[in-house]
């Protein structure tokens, strides 16, 4: 809604559009509680938002005349009639993401802003996505908003080179949006699925436009399709996470896997290899049955991925693939070199690798993982695992 308001009114201050949007939802919750949900809730919301925005401009106009004794022609825009339609919304959402991805800000700041304003992320969620402190993100977002204001922020039609130069950041934003849905600590299944399908929807729009239908866009979409194909199998009825090896493969969505294959082939029509290509490749191998070379392929893709961009998660996933190919003993040496001692997954991986050979070491790593993770489900799973190992040991 914020996106639509900004686009149609050319508001210089995103905050005002945000305030109007949240006011609208507040009014909705009051009104709907008494009168019931209207027949067309979307239309209701937009009508209210439209009126609130008009009110706002009237206020401003009055304010300006009294204080400055001059009426600027800016307010003429308030008279312009506009329509909200689903077509407009989808385009607005993307247009706004492109607009926020303004090189006046650093790439990271652009992404933070897009996630906060457009995807409704909290500061904590952004901090999680970036693996940084919430305080850093708060400052980053404030600075980014200020510099957009100074830059006379508005949503206008972007030129071809502008779209092309901003595409990378837009893709990264959509990638993080998807990941938040896919790996979110939130237990609310519905929210996670909504984030994932929103990311897919927006990426799909990008493939429909000649300017943005690049190999990278296709690779990202392929990655999203492969990952989503397992959404239903990843949690059980109680909302608990189901590990990959224990997933019911009949729950995997074959149609999505096929779509993934289709977009991955599209992505490979020239020699470009991006991180999305490699991640889509890994996700592709995960959809295949365990064969002799499956994990060797995955390991080689992780080797390439870590050469493009270092991240602790990639390093740990690579060590896991290494264990699948060369066995736990060799993988322990490989994993211990990483020295990611503050990372809960590092200890979880080492606990898993030691479980067959050195139970006391395995337990000590699992305990350290429990200390470092914030996720309750994770703590529960690890505690269960420690209990299992302790019983096994006493036998």
């Amino acid at each position: 809604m914020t996106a639509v308001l900004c686009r149609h009114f050319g508001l210089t201050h995103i905050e005002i559009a945000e305030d109007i949007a949240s006011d609208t939802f507040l009014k909705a919750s009051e009104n709907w509680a008494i009168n019931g949900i209207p027949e067309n809730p979307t239309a209701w919301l937009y009508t209210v938002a439209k009126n609130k925005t008009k009110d706002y401009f009237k206020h401003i106009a009055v304010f300006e005349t009294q204080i400055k004794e001059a009426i600027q022609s800016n307010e003429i825009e308030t008279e312009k009639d506009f329509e909200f339609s689903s077509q407009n919304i989808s385009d607005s959402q993307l247009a706004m993401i492109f607009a926020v991805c303004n090189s006046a800000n650093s790439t990271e700041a652009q992404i933070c802003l897009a996630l906060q304003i457009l995807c409704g992320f909290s500061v904590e969620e952004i901090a999680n996505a970036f693996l940084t402190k919430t305080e850093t993100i708060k400052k980053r977002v404030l600075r980014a908003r200020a510099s957009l204001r100074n830059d006379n922020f508005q949503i206008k039609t972007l030129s071809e080179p502008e779209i092309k130069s901003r595409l990378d950041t837009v893709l990264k934003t959509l990638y993080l949006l998807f990941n938040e849905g896919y790996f979110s600590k939130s237990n609310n299944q519905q929210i996670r699925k909504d984030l994932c399908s929103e990311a897919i929807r927006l990426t799909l729009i990008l493939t429909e436009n000649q300017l943005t239908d690049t190999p990278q866009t296709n690779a990202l979409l392929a990655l999203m399709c492969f990952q989503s194909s397992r959404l239903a199998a990843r949690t059980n009825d109680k909302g608990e996470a189901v590990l990959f090896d224990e997933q019911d493969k009949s729950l995997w969505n074959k149609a999505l896997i096929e779509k993934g294959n289709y977009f991955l082939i599209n992505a490979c029509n020239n020699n470009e290899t991006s991180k999305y290509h490699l991640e889509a490749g890994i996700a592709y191998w995960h959809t295949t049955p365990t064969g002799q070379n499956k994990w060797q392929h995955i390991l080689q893709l992780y080797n390439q991925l870590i050469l493009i961009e270092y991240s602790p998660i990639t390093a740990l996933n690579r060590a896991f693939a290494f264990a699948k190919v060369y066995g736990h003993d060799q993988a322990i040496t490989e994993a211990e070199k990483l020295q990611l001692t503050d990372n809960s997954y590092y200890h979880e991986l080492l606990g898993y690798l030691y479980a067959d050979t050195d139970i006391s070491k395995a337990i000590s790593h699992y305990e350290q993982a429990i200390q470092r993770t914030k996720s309750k489900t994770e703590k529960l799973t690890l505690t269960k695992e420690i209990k299992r190992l302790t019983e096994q040991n006493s036998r």
Partner: protein
Amino acid sequence: MKEFALIFRLKDIADFKPSPEQMQERMNWLGSIAAQNKLVDKGSTFLPTQGSAKTVKPNNVVTDGPYTEIKEFISGYIVIKADNIDEAVEIAKANPIFDQVGGNIEVREVLKLY
């Protein structure tokens, strides 16, 4: 942290084309360095084939490749970071080319100006 260039030398041009298995082992070695966040520059590999190497000398003398004079030839380089040269040497020791085909790795600290 200091930076070190690892300069690879092979003995025989025939060793330049590794088998898929050899390639996997080499990539595992490189991936392992990157996974420790110790790779500064993945460097380049130099083609050793006929016509892809010349040496320019004083007085406009140009000779074919370096391999007419020395048997070993430089096949590539990477730049890593390490606390000291001993650590860099340990990393180099783990390179699979010693088991695969022989050759050597020169470890050189990079001069940093700042």
